[in-house]
């Protein structure tokens, strides 16, 4: 047999699997994971919404309307019947008929089908700055007459629009995840990498630290740290401190995973081969080891974001996280803290729906990413 026989197997010409790099292979595997792709699309959508919250939300989130406390959601309709019996077409909602129950001291809202409030797309509104930069005077959707009520997801105890508040809350809730994860990523990769590559005493020290941190009950820790934040700090400073607190705990998990990855790759033959090529420690780490686990890190990070979101929500719900002038899903849920309110106005729980959807989307996305992350995982061969 001549040596050239061996070559025939790779004679395919077009750019196919043989020229696909690691990211191409990951992408191919990822798109096979339908739910993960759906999760990714939802996440992307949420971030776009959070960015454009000013434009998309029908009202200012802070706009108070004492006449509409706990107003129930209005349905959005397309067709209506004119007084003369003909069929009309156009976006609209119906106004409320309000009666006051003097015994229970509360308003009772009944949707009044006779009073139509016409709504529209790209309606004029009070001027605002989109993304803090672009001056705008239009919103995606809203009532044509700005004084009329327009509550697609109902109103809270001050008559503020729940939908607008959820959309604005997404900004804080979705970004606190990113910022928190970014910080714990830095800490985790750094400490985990050192721990795994050098081993020995350094490894012992870092691992014991990780165990110590993980052994502290998390909620009391957060409460203690949050209580230490001075009351007179600006909401923004509190926000920053909260992310710091959250990531202080979050890095431990990542550090362990990175350590494991580094240790497993350190034993690979190709790392040994690189050493025998005369490569220095730095080159081995940068060129051979880090590319081998970046994809893992990305997947792990994606899976860590929902935890951060949940922590923020939980802390804010308990009143030790973000405080009300700031709108986040956690502070919104504070409104739904007592049973009576929830019984009277169940729509105040909508922010929880947003949290659930986001966390699920992130988890599916992260799972798919993790499965696709190692395109060179050993596949069983038939033979």
């Amino acid at each position, binding site marked *: 047999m001549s040596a050239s026989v061996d070559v025939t197997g*790779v004679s395919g010409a077009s750019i196919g699997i043989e*020229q696909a*790099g690691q990211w191409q*292979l990951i992408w191919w595997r990822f798109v096979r994971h339908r739910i993960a792709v759906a999760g990714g699309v939802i996440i992307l959508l949420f971030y776009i919404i959070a960015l454009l919250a000013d434009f998309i939300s029908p009202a200012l989130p802070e706009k108070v309307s004492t006449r509409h406390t706990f107003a129930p959601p209005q349905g959005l309709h397309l067709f209506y019947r004119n007084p003369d019996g003909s069929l009309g077409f156009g976006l609209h909602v119906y106004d409320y008929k309000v009666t006051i129950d003097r015994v229970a001291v509360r308003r009772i809202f009944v949707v009044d089908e006779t009073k139509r409030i016409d709504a529209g797309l790209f309606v004029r509104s009070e001027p605002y700055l989109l993304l803090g930069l672009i001056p705008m005077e239009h919103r995606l959707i809203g009532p044509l007459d700005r004084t009329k009520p327009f509550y697609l997801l109902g109103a809270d105890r001050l008559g503020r629009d729940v939908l607008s508040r959820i959309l604005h809350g997404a900004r804080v809730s979705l970004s606190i995840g990113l910022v928190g994860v970014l910080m714990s990523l830095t800490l985790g990769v750094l400490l985990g990498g050192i721990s795994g590559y050098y081993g020995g005493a350094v490894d012992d020290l870092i691992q014991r630290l990780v165990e110590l941190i993980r052994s502290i009950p998390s909620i009391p820790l957060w409460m203690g740290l949050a209580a230490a934040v001075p009351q007179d700090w600006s909401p923004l400073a509190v926000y920053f401190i909260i992310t710091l607190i959250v990531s202080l705990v979050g890095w431990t998990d990542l550090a362990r995973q990175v350590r494991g990855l580094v240790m497993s790759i350190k034993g690979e033959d*190709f790392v040994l081969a690189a050493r025998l090529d005369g490569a220095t420690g730095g080159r081995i780490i940068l060129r051979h080891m880090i590319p081998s686990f970046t994809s893992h890190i990305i997947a792990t990070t994606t899976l860590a974001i929902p935890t951060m979101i949940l922590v923020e929500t939980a802390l804010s719900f308990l009143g030790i996280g973000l405080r009300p002038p700031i709108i986040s899903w956690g502070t919104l849920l504070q409104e739904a803290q007592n049973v009576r309110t929830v019984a009277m106005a169940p729509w105040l729980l909508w922010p929880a729906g947003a949290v659930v959807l986001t966390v699920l989307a992130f988890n599916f996305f992260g799972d798919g990413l993790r499965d696709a992350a190692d395109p060179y995982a050993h596949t069983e061969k*038939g033979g």
Partner: protein
Amino acid sequence: MTLTTAIQRLHPDPASQSAVLEVQGLSVDFSIRNGMFRAVDDVSFVLERGKTLCLVGESGSGKSVTARAILRIAAPGRITAGRILLHQAGSQGGQAIDIASLSPDSPVIRGIRGRAISMIFQEPLSSLSPLHRIGWQIGEVLAIHSKLGREERRQRVIELLTQVEIPRPEQTIDRYPFELSGGMRQRVMIAMALACNPEILIADEPTTALDVTTQAEILDLIRGLQRRYGMAVLFITHDMGVVAEIADEVAIMRRGKLVESGPVRQIFSRPREPYSQALIGSVLRLQKPREVDAGSGSTPAAAPILTVRALGKRFEPRRSLFGKAPDPINALVDVDLELHEAECLGIVGESGSGKTTLGRCIMRLMQPSSGKVVYRRRDGTETDLADLDTPALRRVYREIRMIFQDPFGSLNPRLTVRQAIAEPLLINRTIPREKIPGRVADLMETVGLDPGAMERYPHAFSGGQRQRICIARALALDPRIIIADEATSALDVTIRLQILDLLLSLRERMKLSFIFISHDMSVIRYFCDRVGVMYKGRLVEIGTSEQICTRPSHAYTRALLSAVPVPDPARRSIASRHRYVEALAPASNAPPAVSATFPSGVQKR
């Protein structure tokens, strides 16, 4: 599928009287990223009572999938065509069960598995549950398929352990798998497979993970048991030596298709198909020393290029928190050897003999505990590698290169072939940067690869091609010595021969010296000028290949050679093997053979 369609009446024709299993037109499909992949394509064969059918093929030929399809454990593969007819001895009137038509988890197939047909696998460690005692695992088969009581089951298990020649079965029954060596574990697997006196035993590469001496014992055991119980054995292997040793019939598979089948002597002496001829040809060529190429032999006049003196390596186990430190392990003891220019020195030994440690200590991948490794440079100056500092060692690494066993693990999957081969050139800056692409192309041609495939990633290449890439990488810096650690062990036999021939031609052309570490005697004999035999960390014998293979002086070498299966069905020799027992070894009756792995406390560096 219902039972009525599964059980079919067959015409009792004389040919199928002795047949116990008939596979007719079997096809198994797997779904892959784009479409279907047919792993088994229209395969037919007949397994006869009391006979051994060897299913032979290289990796990816579909032989394992075929075997698994018979037990319906080929998932996620699906049987898309064909019949698998099982003629059970108990069922009179020629009733056969078509296994292919059963649902993979129907009661009928569960009744067949372990009872009518049982299977043993390649990896005895992962096929046994680490959490359960040996006796419990074997007893489970009996608990499922028989109505024996607890005490009777235990009796039967002891009886089975005795049959598979496990020493002291009364004690071994209460041991855990990790306490046994690989060979003993495989015996336990066999005992488990025999528990219900199956009519068919499917053995999927049962000796591939074992050393030759252990392999010989297991093969002998299987054959003995088969004679005693009249079982039919479907033996799957890639090793033609094993085939010659035990087969009655042989079926050769390639790429999912059955190439040729027939009686073993006919297949070995008069193969009809070109593929069978190539396969048998490669095996037979490996049996003989290569055609001596005059002039390439070592020139003993010159001083050796590498001299190893009294090299030793001790692994000191970590002291545990309680109790005293365990005894250190001597992986290498006083090894002396010399490597001359353009010489191929083979190191042969079984697992745990220290041959890999030797290679790594020479390369200073491990720090030797004692001794010297003297390397003579091109200009004649000599250095001791054993106490060289890192920068100096990096310079030596240009001249001494290494090729690893696993062509899949030793190439970084994230670098293209061009990047992988260029890596040593980039690091060592032996040639200007702009000349590197040309050099990479040259190297690829040298090792018989198409330079056009330069931009591809390693996953696009087969095992043999990857090993060529590794060789190109090793050659990039114009080395003088190449240490090849089991460099051909992971390859199929035809590819193995190609790689060996490639290395030989390179040696010729580039005046390379090789230290070739292998457990495979035939590869060593084919490739090497001189051979060193290692046993428990010591070099017990060293001499020319011819001398070691034909007139070994050390008892261990003789035992080793006697266990190597010869690919000639006319010369079945394993039964006449003998095991080497060290004179000094205490005559304890504990389970023999220290396994190759280091105790968990030992750190590999």
